[in-house]
């Protein structure tokens, strides 16, 4: 459980921003917390809120989550190789819920096989940070004056920038993918307004990632270098 505490603090601030964003997009506090409790993922949730706010179709919602969260499949796949024999199907069905980027990073750095108790402990504190941050963010968004919540709605995007800029600075392959994704997203927003927000994110991200993979394929050796 100790390993989850630094993750919890990070999650608290990101989800606070998410809570504010939900209120900004006219979702209820209950809906904001409901999304966080059932999804436990930042990017997917923001895209989901965009789809809800735009009254998009359920197909769009599914595709959106599929593309954005597909990386979790890979992480789950990788973690599944490290599980202790005591990890039966029941435990796998529960613990699989908690595979996020950060939890994956910590879990995969362990040298011993992962036991159910370890995984539940590792998931619990970030989960609490994520849900309580959303609740407080949504409450703050509800109570504070509009001028403050307007400024706070930049928080989440600010954090996204803080996540992508350092690796992009260090690694031109990441910068390449990031710039293509941003450029496509901007072009679609201004030139192809009939493409709704969720689809625009999917199209931009898939084209950018496929282009990146074609021009700069990643190998296991050069993979981890941008994650600190």
């Amino acid at each position: 459980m100790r390993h989850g505490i630094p993750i919890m603090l990070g999650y608290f601030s990101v989800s606070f921003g998410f809570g504010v964003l939900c209120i900004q997009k006219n979702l209820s506090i209950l809906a904001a917390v409901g999304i966080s409790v059932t999804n436990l993922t930042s990017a997917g949730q923001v895209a989901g809120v965009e789809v809800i706010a735009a009254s998009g179709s359920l197909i769009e919602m599914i595709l959106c989550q599929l593309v954005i969260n597909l990386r979790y499949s890979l992480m789950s796949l990788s973690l599944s190789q490290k599980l202790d024999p005591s990890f039966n199907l029941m435990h796998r069905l529960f613990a699989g819920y908690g595979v996020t980027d950060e939890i994956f990073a910590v879990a995969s750095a362990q040298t011993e096989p992962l036991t159910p108790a370890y995984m539940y402990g590792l998931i619990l504190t970030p989960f609490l940070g994520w849900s309580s941050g959303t609740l407080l963010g949504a409450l703050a968004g509800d109570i504070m004056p509009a001028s403050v919540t307007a400024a706070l709605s930049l928080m989440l995007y600010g954090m996204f920038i803080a996540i992508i800029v350092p690796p992009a600075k260090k690694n031109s392959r990441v910068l390449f993918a990031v710039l293509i994704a941003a450029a496509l997203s901007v072009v679609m927003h201004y030139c192809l307004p009939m493409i709704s927000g969720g689809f625009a994110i999917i199209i931009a991200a898939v084209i950018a990632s496929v282009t990146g993979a074609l021009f700069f394929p990643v190998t296991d050796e050069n993979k981890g270098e941008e994650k600190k």
Partner: protein
Amino acid sequence: MSVAVYIAVMAVTTYLIRVIPFAAVRGKIKSRFLNSVLYYIPFAVLSAMTFPAIFYATGNVITSVIGTVIALVMAYFNLPLIVVALTSSAGAFIASLIIGGIS
């Protein structure tokens, strides 16, 4: 459509994406291409989600762009997430006060 339906669909999709490989698959993805795509996806998604949405985040393009520039500069100097987020918001807030004061 009810928001609850959206949330349920969203939650089930996200859950299945995580659990199916966790519970069922035991092999490893060998395709270098697929691994590369999956490696770039998080960065590309965050970037596509941030731009151009961040320019409208505060409801005012000028204060949003000021916040964006602050976030980019702060992130360039590797400051922690929360510092980047808060200075960006604070900058936009101060800008909105100044603009409000002028007009």
